[in-house]
């Protein structure tokens, strides 16, 4: 992994919002290196900041939010310093494009889908008219829309949810970006369609050499598409590693809890695991490990000092004091131990 080129590097990013006169810290010194050509999944519960984090790469924060400190390095420029719309227009679509969650509302209901895709092409690929139309039809067929010549002239309401998401994806890809951010691309879709859309995204990533970021709270999606997983909690990435590493050898108690909540890991006849308590209130300063108050295995230091990253393997690191050599030995829950064993058996055999 180390020999791959870093395409986007976020360092100690802090994002704040002003809400009803109070200031909320949505992202708390999060750092991330995104490698060229990889597929990274950011997982976390609602409100953990995963959407806000990626939106800040495109200057799409809501009007009451701002980057307070930190850098977002991309192609030699610090995006965190961008202020005007003019700056961001160099990035939006052209370099980083986004697929949104809800295809039912992401398209303009009064414009033909052909025109909406073509708008992206004309904006970023420097061609117009008939030629752009031809390319539009090409993209529509790329995302699996049958009879694209006819569909070009149809309106969003003539498409099903899955088909609309394909159009939204076509728009993002037609911008010809380097990085594609998929913000819960399958959450609003039928389960049977979800797999198709993920397959499509995987295919397009190869075809157009995209680096992709998936934002999701569906670990099933992650397992399907991601090379690496970043686990986000209370505005920070608390664990990041290769897909197998995070799934089978999780280190942070929050990752344990998250995985234990998977119905697949539940034991028949027993209640499904839930994480007790609620995420911390982001209006207040968080002391120590943000997850400590909800963590039955929390150490004393977890309430006092924020843990740094501890390297587990060259590709895997986590922010938990449990990884400190001085920490007492804390056993993960049963289900996580089972995962670990399974993984050890598999990787040895």
């Amino acid at each position: 992994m180390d020999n791959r080129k870093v395409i986007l590097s976020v360092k100690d990013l802090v994002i704040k919002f002003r809400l009803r006169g109070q200031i909320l810290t949505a992202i708390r010194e999060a750092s991330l290196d995104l490698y060229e050509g990889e597929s990274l999944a950011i997982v976390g519960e609602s409100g953990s900041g995963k959407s806000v984090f990626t939106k800040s790469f495109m200057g799409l924060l809501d009007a009451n939010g701002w980057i307070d400190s930190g850098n977002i390095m991309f192609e030699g420029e610090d995006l965190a310093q961008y202020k005007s719309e003019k700056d961001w227009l160099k990035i939006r679509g052209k370099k980083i494009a986004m697929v949104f969650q809800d295809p039912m509302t992401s398209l303009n209901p009064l414009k033909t889908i052909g025109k909406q895709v073509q708008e992206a092409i004309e904006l970023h690929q420097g061609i117009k008219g008939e030629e752009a139309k031809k390319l539009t039809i090409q993209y529509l067929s790329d995302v699996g829309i049958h009879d694209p010549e006819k569909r070009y002239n149809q309106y969003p309401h003539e498409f099903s949810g899955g088909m609309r998401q394909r159009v939204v994806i076509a728009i993002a890809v037609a911008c010809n970006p380097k990085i594609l951010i998929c913000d819960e691309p399958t959450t609003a879709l039928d389960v049977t369609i979800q797999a198709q859309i993920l397959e499509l995204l995987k295919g397009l990533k190869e075809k157009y050499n995209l680096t992709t970021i998936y934002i999701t709270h569906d670990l099933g999606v992650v397992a399907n598409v991601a090379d690496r997983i970043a686990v986000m909690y209370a505005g920070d990435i608390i664990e990041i590693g290769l897909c197998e590493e995070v799934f089978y050898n999780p280190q942070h108690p929050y990752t344990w809890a998250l995985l234990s909540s998977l119905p697949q890991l539940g034991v028949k006849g027993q209640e499904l695991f839930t994480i007790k308590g609620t995420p911390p209130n982001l209006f207040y300063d968080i002391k120590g490990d943000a997850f400590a108050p909800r963590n039955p295995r929390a150490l004393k230091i977890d309430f006092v000092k924020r843990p740094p990253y501890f390297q587990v393997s060259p590709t895997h690191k986590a922010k938990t004091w449990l990884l400190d050599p001085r920490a007492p030995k804390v056993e993960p829950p049963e289900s996580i131990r089972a995962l670990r064993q399974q993984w050890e058996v598999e990787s040895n055999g």
Partner: protein
Amino acid sequence: MLKYSIKRLFQSLLTLFIIVTVVFLLMRLLPEEGYFGDAYEKLDEAQREAILTSMGLRDPIHIQLINFYKNLLKGDLGESITFRPRVPVMEIIKDKVPYSLYFGLASIAISLIVGISLGIAMARNKSKFWDKLGTGYIVFVRAVPAAVYFLFIQIYITDIFKLPMLFKIDDPKTWILPTISMSLGGIASYAMWIRRYMVDELNKDYVKLARAKGLDSKKIMVRHVFRNAFVPMAQYLPATILFTISGSIYIESLYSIPGMGGLLVEVIKRQDNTLVQALVLIYSSIGIVGLFLGDILMALFDPRIKLER
């Protein structure tokens, strides 16, 4: 579209039929003194009966009604009975139309241009100074009865700018205030609707996608937001335009403009049955045509709307 139009035409005719019948009957319920105006005292019982009989008002009510329908089908709206006796009503109305039409058109143009610009400016500066100022204006115009500020405009503005109080056909200075007064309400409505619909649209996901796609905010406004915000307005536009050009009842009487609006008030007071019926018929037809055009306009703008199944 043709099938829809035909269906709609029959519905409209039925509506018109009901309206004119109700108005016809209501006019017959008014006290009879009204037909004589100031002359009432000077006439004795027999003379009054003779006049009413000559007006056809002593026929049984169903006969009167049937005669009215028959004439209507022939295209004959009848003659004025009290306002200008024996003059065909169409002739009276024809003279009034140009005044209402020209004032109406001028006021529509002003309302649309100023109203829509104000609405856009308000939507773009939501919750800032211009938005608040505009909202203040809209609330004022819509909350205070029009009669109040129309009157104040007539009294004080004419005084300040030394303008004549009443309308004179050959003095363009007297055209200004009625036109402005007539536009105030329209400006407020258009600004309010455009602002409201644009703010609605601005919060929609497709605008976020358009931003993420890399469109600049001006293009987003023009290509996506304004156009979409205009659609719900399109439905009401023809009706309001037609109503405006058919004359403002209050403004016309205030400035003594000899238009259709003033005429209606006058002939109701004078109990000129035939003229009232004719004017109501015209106003209702205008309303119905306006709504119909609104529906068609809407269907043209919004591909999701199909007029027929």
